[in-house]
């Protein structure tokens, strides 16, 4: 017999990690019966600092997360990690391999790692990633790190999901740094250049600093007109363990600014807005499939043959969705 979600929430509030695990699975299943429990968790959360870490595939995100967590643990803070990898667009299945880079953390009781698949979500996050963050928050983790899928240019949802967003760039991408300027590079609160043991890393750091200096200053300012936060560029080498302390200090500094100024107030509102839209979208999607299940295939066949157009068909299908 499955344990009722309400009971799991009560256990979660006492810090029970088995309950946390099971609740994350239920969040991923998107069963409407569990929504009330997820709502209760949301209301109890809000203590943890949420760090988003994003970057192109192979930029060293998982390895950096591993080093970061290891170092944060030295001062006793508990860290949760949500590591996201892509689902297959064909089978819906996935291979979640981020844990392989984090094996040194698995026996530490103060660290919790959960892998999630995107399941058709396209912004770099998994659909229930933020509920999983809430669950770890309520379980008492001080910092929760969300590692996105390896992204391209436009997967910027992480900025609306985390308090501090870190964008990781690897050296050697050369002119690509220029090319990806708009989009992903704009969302960083902190830029990291990884693999700084490589000789070409200085060039990447300089490129990023130049880009930041040239950027139009749209930052939120204090009363004297100074930006509340100036985006720094931190070089790290996970291999040599360099720059990790600086990065943690930078994250903590950003957290303090986030918590004490208008910066955080506006950020929290954007996050709330994003979650509302996303949750509504998910609900709409699942109800759409539930209520059009029988007719969808036939309709799609007709549209493929151009006997029907997608505009009329969608309007018609949406009118049948049960609310």
């Amino acid at each position, binding site marked *: 017999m*499955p*344990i009722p979600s309400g009971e799991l929430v009560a256990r979660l509030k006492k810090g029970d*990690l*088995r309950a946390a*695990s*099971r609740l*994350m*699975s239920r969040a*991923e*299943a*998107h*069963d409407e019966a569990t929504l009330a429990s997820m709502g209760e968790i949301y209301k109890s959360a809000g203590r943890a600092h949420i760090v988003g870490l994003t970057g192109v595939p192979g930029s060293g995100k998982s390895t950096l997360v591993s080093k970061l967590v290891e170092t944060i643990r030295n001062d006793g803070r508990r860290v949760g990690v949500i590591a996201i990898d892509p*689902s*297959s667009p*064909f*089978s*819906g*299945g*996935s*291979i*979640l*391999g981020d*844990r*392989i880079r984090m*094996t040194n953390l*698995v*026996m530490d009781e103060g660290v*919790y*790692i*959960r*892998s999630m*698949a995107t399941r058709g979500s396209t912004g770099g996050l998994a659909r229930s990633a933020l509920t999983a963050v809430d669950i770890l928050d309520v379980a008492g983790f001080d910092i929760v790190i969300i590692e996105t899928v390896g992204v391209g240019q436009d997967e910027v949802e992480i900025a609306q999901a985390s308090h501090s967003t870190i964008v990781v760039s690897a050296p050697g991408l050369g002119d690509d740094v220029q090319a990806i300027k708009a989009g992903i590079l704009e969302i960083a609160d902190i830029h990291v250049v990884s693999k700084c043991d490589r000789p070409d890393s200085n060039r990447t750091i300089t490129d990023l600093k130049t880009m930041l200096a040239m950027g139009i200053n749209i930052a939120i300012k204090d009363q004297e007109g100074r930006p509340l936060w100036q985006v720094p560029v931190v070089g790290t080498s996970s291999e040599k363990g360099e720059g990790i302390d600086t990065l943690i200090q930078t994250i903590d500094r950003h957290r303090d600014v986030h918590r004490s100024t208008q910066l955080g107030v506006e950020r929290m509102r954007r996050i709330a807005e994003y979650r509302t839209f996303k949750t509504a979208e998910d609900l709409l999607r*699942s109800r759409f*499939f539930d209520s059009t299940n029988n007719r969808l295939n036939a309709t799609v066949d007709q549209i493929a043959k151009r006997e029907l157009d997608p505009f009329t068909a969608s309007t018609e299908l949406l009118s049948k969705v049960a609310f």
Partner: protein
Amino acid sequence: MSSPIRVLLAKVGLDGHDRGVKVVARTLRDAGMDVIYTGLHRTPDEVVNAAIQEDVDVLGISLLSGAHMTICPKIMALLEEKDASDTIVVVGGVVPDEDVNALKEMGVKELLLQDTPPNKIVETLQRLGDERGPR
């Protein structure tokens, strides 16, 4: 919307051969399952901790080293100790016929040995998932 079956595939102990487990990972992925792979040389404690954090339906242990009668009892005991006995444990790889029953008596649900065709692996996990039901 229901969730795909979640599977943790583990290589435990001094066993460096992971071509097989990677083929299995790919097969399960293509059958729509979420597969988490631990990488090589894990300990029973690490594997059980990962299985709990990931809340997997199935723990698949790949063993080609002959250490199954040492490693499997440890894993089964740890799952019991940590209140995770509802995890379906499946062993794959090279296991002599005479050890098969002993492993099943320990609670290993199914052995998928070296001659198992890929579709049989998928069917077995789906059947075991259905038998256990929701949790």
